[in-house]
């Protein structure tokens, strides 16, 4: 499924941060979001995932097509790797988790509680969760935070595998992940300071 975004404007804390954002993401491709801190990468990704309404503009794919992941993985420390994964699979109406465990090299850790995993292993588990959602478009917010170089490489391979399988990925990151990807710099889309809302005109 193509993801086409047209003239999108989104707000953080009631104030517009981005406007006029537009891009197209084809299956099998990845798009890297760049831009300085505070430009609104997280806001854009949350808007696409359906967690907050857009101020204006259109998003061609519904939120149901997207699997959202921020740097918090939604893992429960006292549940095992398998239990964590099985829970999310059931929430998303999927059955098998074997493939996800295998692909992310987690089968040996299946019965270990999530609190005993290293940061890299947790991140892999978080990514395996994306696989059990069964959704085509991955929307990832700073996925490589707190990962060492080896884990970043593993992560990059995982995303590349998803792309080869016909998925797509939208990733906000500063790191090169080791596969070909288009880049989108958000700096030109910074919302211009202007009349914010109708409170300006109260004194016009």
């Amino acid at each position, binding site marked *: 499924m193509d993801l086409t975004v047209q003239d999108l404007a989104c707000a953080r804390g009631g*104030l517009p941060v981005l406007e006029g954002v537009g891009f197209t993401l084809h299956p099998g491709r990845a798009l890297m979001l760049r831009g300085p801190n505070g430009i609104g990468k997280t806001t854009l990704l949350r808007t696409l995932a359906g967690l907050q309404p857009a101020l204006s503009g259109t998003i061609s794919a519904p939120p149901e097509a997207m699997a959202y992941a921020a740097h918090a993985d939604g893992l429960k420390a006292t549940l095992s790797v398998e239990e964590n994964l099985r829970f999310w699979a059931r929430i998303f109406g999927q059955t098998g988790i074997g493939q996800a465990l295998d692909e992310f090299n987690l089968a040996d850790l299946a019965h270990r509680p999530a609190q005993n995993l290293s940061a890299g292993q947790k991140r892999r588990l978080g990514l395996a969760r994306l696989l059990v959602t069964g959704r085509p478009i991955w929307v990832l917010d700073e996925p490589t935070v707190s990962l060492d170089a080896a884990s970043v490489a593993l992560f990059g391979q995982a995303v590349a595998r998803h792309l080869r399988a016909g998925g797509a990925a939208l990733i906000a990151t500063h790191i090169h992940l080791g596969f070909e990807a288009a880049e989108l710099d958000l700096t030109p889309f910074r919302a211009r300071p202007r009349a914010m809302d109708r*409170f300006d005109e*109260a004194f016009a």
Partner: protein
Amino acid sequence: MSLWEYANPKKFMQTSQAVLPAIWGLTALSMVVGLVWGFFLTPEAENFGSTVKIIYLHVPAAMMAINAWVMMLVASLIWLVRRHHVSALAARAAAPVGLTMTVIALVTGAIWGEPMWGTYWAWDPRLTSFLILFLFYLGYIALWEAIENPDAAADLTSVLCIVGSVFALLSRYAVNFWNQGLHQGATLSMDKQENIANVFWFPLLVCMGAFILLFVALVLERTRTEIRARRIKALIARERMA
């Protein structure tokens, strides 16, 4: 011209600026007339003595304590349905006024209760209901203060106001069931006005009118302040972005 045009901040600021002096003038006039008439120009009631005169503060304040919540409920619904910012801000502006009215009703009630019933406080259904109403106001105001994003705060307080209204009504019924009390019935509602002699009733009507005007004036004034505060926030944010 539609009523909704007054929900436009600009129109609201202009209109409220034009009418506020008149409303304040009428408030002052009716308040002075009502209270002087009530306190000094009515006879002493047979079985109440001069204490009955606190009624001219107690009853209007109690009435406005409830009406303020109803007004907040209506404003909250308007905000949720039509997204008029002024409506949300008016609800926010009304809450502390309603809280103050509730406190006045409770305190004057306690002062009156001591000579009448021999106690400042009794767990009478009406008194208890007002105490619960007081808690509802506190929670509502605290929620407004706690949330930074103004639109989210308006949404959440509106939801709380609607749910709270249902529970407030339910509490009223529950408290009645729990304890039938000392408080005289609603001797002062319109259809029961024969229960109170005209000589007391007319000044009371004036006082009730004065409290309604006072409420309107205060809410308008406070809403104007809220709009200005939002404008300042918008300007600061714009400064930061530029």
